[in-house]
């Protein structure tokens, strides 16, 4: 039915099956869209956020998708700038994941603000001292870069490629992609960092505040670093999931191993920095403000030391080590465990840096504020996931995302008819 669009030589499932799958996920999208419309038309009272929880699930989702979307910029950086050529076999997919993550982040932000129609004031009346301004500018610019990076891949669609203009455009764009990759890496460095800065500069919140370098608190660098470290984990994880669902091998092991290795070393170094940061904060910064570290992890029914331990050791040190060591890295099961832990780890870190900050009382007579998101928040947070699945399904089906697919899955020469 849609075979004319399917990449040459690639085998895809029957269209009805595909359509059913899309419809199921589409229903989730519609649910999310409904919740989104509720939030827009009825206001943010649809959420369970409150004056203690000005930042909640959405901002976490935002930070998390941007962190895991960091695979795009980092892979791009490695491929185009550091010329790690093997990565060309996964770069398309990394870019698509990045595109999904960043578009989702922008969408969530558009729902999250109280007056969405004035959201552009962040550009129009920008306060250059605000980390959020930096985030907004870099995020938007980098999204533009990701779109540009994504375009050539779209143009490689069999039908689109037949149009000479598109064909050339795609070709030429590939040629200059290094420039965009560099720009993207630069922008990413800043917005990943400034997202970390968002928490780190809140000097009224002893749990969040960090000292730092010039105007940038340490969280700035930690966020960038962790995004670079865990982003590829997510790229690998989604690749793995796609491979499982399609039942095909799409990327060669050496590529996977390479990315995993790089990710492993990044995680390992990151986690050392994170540990140093945590120790300094726990021993110096917070006590200097009158807070014993136990204040952050006790007297409430949810946030305990377990969260710190999980984030740093179980989802930090362990995946780092698993990916560094050749034997575990090349063991598919352990590698999978490591990348899953890694993704959980970075999401947990973002959770802590958004929600735990808000939960902790600062005034001595204040109380812990715990929060459970409303279904509207959950639905709008699931929305990007569902949208991501659809976009991946569609791009996988119609675009030559994985250059090694053909090679790895030798199909009988074009049996399909036009």
């Amino acid at each position: 039915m849609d075979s004319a669009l399917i990449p040459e030589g690639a085998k895809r499932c029957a269209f009805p099956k595909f359509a059913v799958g899309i419809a199921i996920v589409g229903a989730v999208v519609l649910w999310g869209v409904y919740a989104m419309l509720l939030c827009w038309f009825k206001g943010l009272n649809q959420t369970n956020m409150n004056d203690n929880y000005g930042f909640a699930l959405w901002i976490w989702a935002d930070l998390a998708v941007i962190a895991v979307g960091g695979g795009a910029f980092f892979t791009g950086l490695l491929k185009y700038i550091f010329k790690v050529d093997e990565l060309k076999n996964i770069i398309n997919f990394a870019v698509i994941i990045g595109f999904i993550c960043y578009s989702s982040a922008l969408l969530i932000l558009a729902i999250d603000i109280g007056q969405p129609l004035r959201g552009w004031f962040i550009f129009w009346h920008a306060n250059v001292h605000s980390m959020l301004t930096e985030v907004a500018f870099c995020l938007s610019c980098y999204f533009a870069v990701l779109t540009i990076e994504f375009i050539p891949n779209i143009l490689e669609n069999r039908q689109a490629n037949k149009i000479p203009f598109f064909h050339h455009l795609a070709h030429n764009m590939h040629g200059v992609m290094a420039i965009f990759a560099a720009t993207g890496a630069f922008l990413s460095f800043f917005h990943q960092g400034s997202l970390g800065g968002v928490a780190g500069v809140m000097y009224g919140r002893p749990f969040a505040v960090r000292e730092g370098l010039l105007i940038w608190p340490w969280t700035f660098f930690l966020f960038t670093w962790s995004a670079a470290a865990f982003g590829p984990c997510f790229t690998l994880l989604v690749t793995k999931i796609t491979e499982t669902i399609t039942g095909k091998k799409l990327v060669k092991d050496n590529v996977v191993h390479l990315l995993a290795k790089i990710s492993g070393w990044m995680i390992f170094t990151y986690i050392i920095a994170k540990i140093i940061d945590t120790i300094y904060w726990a021993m110096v910064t917070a006590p200097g403000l009158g807070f014993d570290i136990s204040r952050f992890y006790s007297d409430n029914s949810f946030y305990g030391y377990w969260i710190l331990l999980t984030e740093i050791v179980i989802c930090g040190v362990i995946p780092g080590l698993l990916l560094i060591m050749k034997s575990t890295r090349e063991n598919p099961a352990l590698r999978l465990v490591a990348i899953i832990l890694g993704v959980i780890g970075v999401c947990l870190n973002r959770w802590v840096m958004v929600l735990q900050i808000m939960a902790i009382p600062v005034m001595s007579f204040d109380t812990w504020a715990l929060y459970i998101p409303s279904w509207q928040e959950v639905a709008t947070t699931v929305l990007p996931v569902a949208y991501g699945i659809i976009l991946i399904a569609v791009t996988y089906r119609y675009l030559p995302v994985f250059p090694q697919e053909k090679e790895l899955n030798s199909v009988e020469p074009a049996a399909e008819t036009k």
Partner: protein
Amino acid sequence: MSKKENKNESGSAESAGECTAGDTKDDKGLGLGVIFFILAFVICFLSGTLLFPKLLYSKKEQPFNFNHELHVGETGDCESCHAIREDGSFNGIPKLAKCQECHTETPLGETEDEAVFTEMYVAKEKEVPWYVYSRQPDCVFFSHAAHTKTEGMDCVTCHGPIGTSTNLKPYEENRITGYSREIWGQNIWGIKKHSWDRMKMDDCAECHKKETGHQGYCFQCHK
């Protein structure tokens, strides 16, 4: 042009099938394209400059005409009617009671406008629903006392030579914002020749910067 042609040529050559015929056609198409481009450009530019303002503003007539020149002549100055109250606030457009200090139900003059005024408003004790050219959004605070009393500015600097006018100009209401055209200024580009041509925040800030060295903090003009 030729460069583009070449590109197109090579493009056609490389692409399979379909666009084999017609360098000339392409050429013609491109020519048409350029013409269309120029045409659309000019039309859109002109309509954006000339037609757009007409669409953007709806003209509203004041309840009746008011001759500022005549009244200034009678009273001597602006402050007789547009006064700063003892608490330092500004009375804006005077209430009917102020007018009634001179006007009774018997007209003072012979104009049609005054007849309307006395019949419709003075006799019925009804306030005149003037459209206010300089009305600012609710979030704006403005102290007339600070400007006229303390700094000795005259009314003209911001309001223009309204005191010498004999007719009220039509009130042009911005269909999007609901505010008067005077705020953005008559010039659709927002270019001003006189200090009174525009009344936007940037104009306040500009003058403040010049006169006080600082554009002021938010609360100076916002409430």
